[in-house]
């Protein structure tokens, strides 16, 4: 297992590359999904009041 992690001496480069990519993609995905949900809640919050107010 450690031999695998060692990556033939290039461990830092290979794992940084994969790690950074994974981190960036996850952060982007989460922020997009959370953003979609939060804005939907705010729209729902505004919309019924508007209907009642009409």
């Amino acid at each position, binding site marked *: 297992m450690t031999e695998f992690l060692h*990556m033939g001496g*290039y461990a830092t480069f290979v794992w940084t590359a994969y790690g*950074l*990519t994974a981190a960036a993609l996850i952060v982007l995905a989460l922020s*997009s*999904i959370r*953003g*979609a949900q939060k*804005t939907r809640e705010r729209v729902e919050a*505004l919309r019924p009041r508007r209907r009642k107010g009409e």
Partner: protein
Amino acid sequence: MHRFANPAEFNRLADAILPWAKIIMAAAFAYGLYLALFTSPPDYQQGESVRIMYVHVPAAWMSMFTYMVVAAASFTALVWRHPVALLAGKAAAPIGATFTALALITGMLWGKPMWGTYWVWDGRLTSVLVLFFLYLGYMALWRGLDEEDKAGRAASILALVGVVNIPIIKFSVDWWNTLHQPSSVMRMDGPTMPAEMLWPLLTVALAFKAYFIVVFLYRMKLEINLRKLTVLSSIEARG
């Protein structure tokens, strides 16, 4: 084309696609990583560091693909004044910029073990760098103008001017590269690559595409809701 003009229609379409895209994404990521990290052989010259290519190359492909999506959305938005297409450009750009940044970072991480320096003015890497600035310009223009609708159409014009110039930039950078650095350093040519190296590349590329669709649809929901919020608040303002 006009069917998706209204957001409710688009949301229904998105909800239909999302589950499938997620499944493909998960499967492709799992299988791709397995191929990239375990079964594919180390390169006789570069050793294990070649595995960085399996992330770097698909990211570079995605940065180009996403800009084409932005350009197509911009064309639709300008020619048919299609409100949802206008938001599609705004939703896709950050994803493209992220992939471009990743392509640059992984390119540098791959360059260090191979040539001893993080940044190499290789033709392909330099083109990706210029593409990164095109993304920054597009996104900055969206925020530059105060009226959202005008900002969108201005950014769309920029995207179309940009997409026409990309092949010219690519050609001039390659030309400049051969001028100053005759040996082509980064050997990433697809077809001559042995099969067991090609498969992880294509699988990760598929995973990135599925990932793009998933995140793009969520960002579209986000942008549509944001536009609804500005519209609703403008009604509140009129009272």
